[in-house]
């Protein structure tokens, strides 16, 4: 596997994993998701509108997420996303894949210091 393709798969895969994880417990709208990512990573990871929403739409197109409009008086309407059963399954897969990946990286990097 080349660095280039790892890099590409990695970014895309990790972003999806982040979004799916954040929606696991409850439904959220786009701004909320971006805030959570930023705050929980202490500002290390940040998604801009231009990258976040295309990702949300793609996950929705794949049937992992479902979005719906919620209107409140005196506010702009907001679109909330929640995880579908398919999304839940993918999340579980991605999570263990990620864990294996991180573990692999850990083994490799820590081996140098062992």
């Amino acid at each position: 596997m080349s660095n280039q393709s790892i890099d590409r798969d990695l970014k895309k895969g990790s972003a999806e994993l982040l979004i799916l994880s954040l929606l696991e417990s409850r439904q959220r709208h786009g701004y909320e998701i971006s805030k959570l990512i930023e705050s929980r990573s202490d500002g290390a990871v940040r998604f801009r509108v231009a990258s976040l929403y295309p990702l949300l739409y793609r996950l929705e197109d794949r049937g992992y997420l479902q979005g719906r409009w919620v209107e409140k008086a005196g506010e702009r309407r907001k679109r909330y996303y929640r995880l579908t059963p398919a999304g839940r399954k993918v999340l579980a897969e991605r999570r263990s894949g990620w864990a294996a990946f991180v573990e692999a990286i850990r083994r490799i990097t820590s081996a140098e210091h062992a």
Partner: protein
Amino acid sequence: MPDWTQPVLDRIRNLGLSPAREADIADELASHLEERYRELLARGLPAAEAERAALEELESGDALASRLRATRQPLAREPMPLGSTRKGNLMESFWHDLKVAIRMLAQRPAFSLAVAGMLAIGVAGNAAIFSVFNAMFLRPLPFPGADRLVDLDETAPKWNLTRVGISNPDYDAWQKGNKTFESMAFADTGGGANLATPDGGSERIKLAAVTKDMLHVLGLKPLIGRDIQAEDDRPKAPAVLLLGYDLWQRQFHGDRNVAGLIVKLSGRPHTVIGVLPREAVLPPNVDAWVPLAADVTDGGSYHLGGTGRLKPGVTIGQAKADLTRIHFSRQENAGRITSPVVFPARDRYVSDFKIVTRILLGAVAVVLLIACVNIAGLMLVRGEGRSREIAIRTAIGASRGRIARQLITEGFVLAAAGGICGVALGKVFLTGLASLMPDDLPKWIRFDFDGRFALFCIAITALAGVLFSLAPVLQASALDTRGWLQEAARNTFGKGRRAMLGTLVTGEVALSLVLLSGCGLILQAFQKVMHENPGFRPDHVLTFSLRPSPVKYPKPEQRLSFYQSLLDRLRALPGVRDASAATIVPLDGHSGWFYRAEGGRQFGANEQTPVVLQVTVLPGYLKTMGIRLASGRDFDERDNRLDAPKVVMINETFARFYWGTTDVVGKRVAWAGNGPTGPDWFQVIGVFKDMRHYGLDEAIRPEVFASIAVTGGAFTFAVRTDTDPHTIVSATRQEIQRLDPNLPMFNVRTMTERLDRSLWTRRAYSWLFAAFAAVAILLAAAGIYGVISFGVSQRTREIGIRMALGARPGQVLSRVLWQGMLLVAAGVAIGLTVSQLTARLLTTLLFGVSTRDLATYAGVILGVALVGLVANFVPARRAARIHPVEALRSE
């Protein structure tokens, strides 16, 4: 509050979204930007700065649009890099895949070499056999419009002959009466002549006596000089000659002024009128053409072959019907003994090879298939090793299509490498094969590579690539990431994939069993043929032919006396035990006559009449050739005069066929059909044991050895020696030159050589088949070994636990062995069933060996089982030696 909707709309306007969708997206993004704006304001930023920062979220409009566009693409596709077109992306990812594939393969040289090597072996066999098949059956003959050329002949089922040749009146009638041919020409290729060469020597050359249109039918023109004209092609016309290209080069050194030259053929002067082009390869293997100059009213014999050029659009069936109509409208053919037949032009020369080459093609295809199965197994096993990599790539977002594409690219890179090596190896193999072939193959059979060959090689390589890429792709696409990773983490082998490998092993064993049993039957038949008693003793016999010029020896007595003095001189040579002569020695051809037997079996008008092989022999022939007498006596000096009583010897088949007994010395036979004074009877003075005149694996016909008083002929001499018969060739040539300096000796061969040549095809395909079967079983053994070893290595921990729990090494050994042998047994069972069906295809090659020959099958099954046992035993023993503690620690 700034307007957030408009900036968003500006950026997504060109996406071609539906207005509703556009509004939704604008709303959602605007809501986001608004919240961001509020947040920034709350942090104390000035309004203008907060607005600018919020709008930065959109980055550049292009980036947003292109990402959004990507989400509207079909799901399987990867998002495209910015600013690239779709096409560019595909090409780019192809090159990318290719680079990655080559790098991956280079990292595992042993694996890559094993795959490419196995494929190369499979492709090489296919390439070589296909080029033989291509040369014989597919490549067009070197004539313009060759697809419209047909071969003409007559058939006579009543005489048990498929081809009898065409008679003069028949060819004349066909030529004049047909409506389906553009043109047709006829040739007698049985002739030859002694050419007085420019250097004063003489060379025996082969002649085709052709009708005037032959070159025209072939669509060719003379290279030099003129074609045969109507006035050349009639009885008593001045003798003319068209030199063949090779003869022109050989004896006339390509002299372009050769036309008009007078050359002597067996003493008779002929004018050279031209030179044939190199492409004039039909009739095959002749050195020169002379006009047939036939008397078309003389229907005495069937001796011509025909070549016709069909009118465009006419089928062979229509042409045959046309000729049949003309044929039976002739009074002479009312008896319906012969009838016209039309074949594709090449049939006459290659039809014997049709079944053999097809069977060989089938055999090499099986070898290739086994190689593919093996490779698929290797790929699967390696796929296991790569499971972590694939699982991680999938986990971090690579689509399944993407991974499949990568695996297929790797498969094809391997296939291409194997294919190229295979073709190179095939070329070597083919060169070896061609050098073993007899030198009298028609010249148009050339084994060069051509476009058709290239296409074939590309096709089989690609097919192989698809076949062996399929398993890993299926494996990867059936992948359940989580399960996979857990499995990979445990380092044991999935049940489904173990079953897949097991199926491959079983299939491999079955395929090799099919090939091995076919090979066993063919070798059995070969053995049977080799042990067949030829009925003559081929060792220590030299044979050669002489054709004394009728100009120099016009009378039969003169020729006989020449033969006599030559034989006397030969017998006097040191090392020579016997010498004699016959018009046709065994394995040298056929001359068919019809006979009747006095007081013997009669034939009705519609009964099949056997063709009798008639050979004129001189005294001492039986002894020289080692043919045994059953009863009566051989010819001796009493019979060696033209005016002696007419006597014959017959073989046992003749005696039994006509009289039902071999006790027939003293009875009389005659040619069928009455002469003006009734039948001309020949007394049978001896009955000789049957011999295989036409070849060890050919049927025996009734045979008559006639004395010189019955009929004359041109002789082939046989000399039995005490030493290697080759050692007397030069002494023999000297004796001939002493008697007649201008008489070339030709057709010089020992009987052993003749026997070898007659068995060439059988020997060649038997050994080829054996070679393919050997490769097949080796590949299968490697496959079994690889799969079982892999299984053992994957189950190290399980076996370790078993042994920790008290399993003894012997139990582990037998368990692994048993599992492996179960696969082999299943393969044997399937292979046996299939081979029962395929063996029938071999029947014509088996010389009476049963397709269910017990010994063959027993041997093959035992062999396969043994190979399977060895291939299983090595990994099983390794399993039994696993140390439980180490096995567990390895985790």
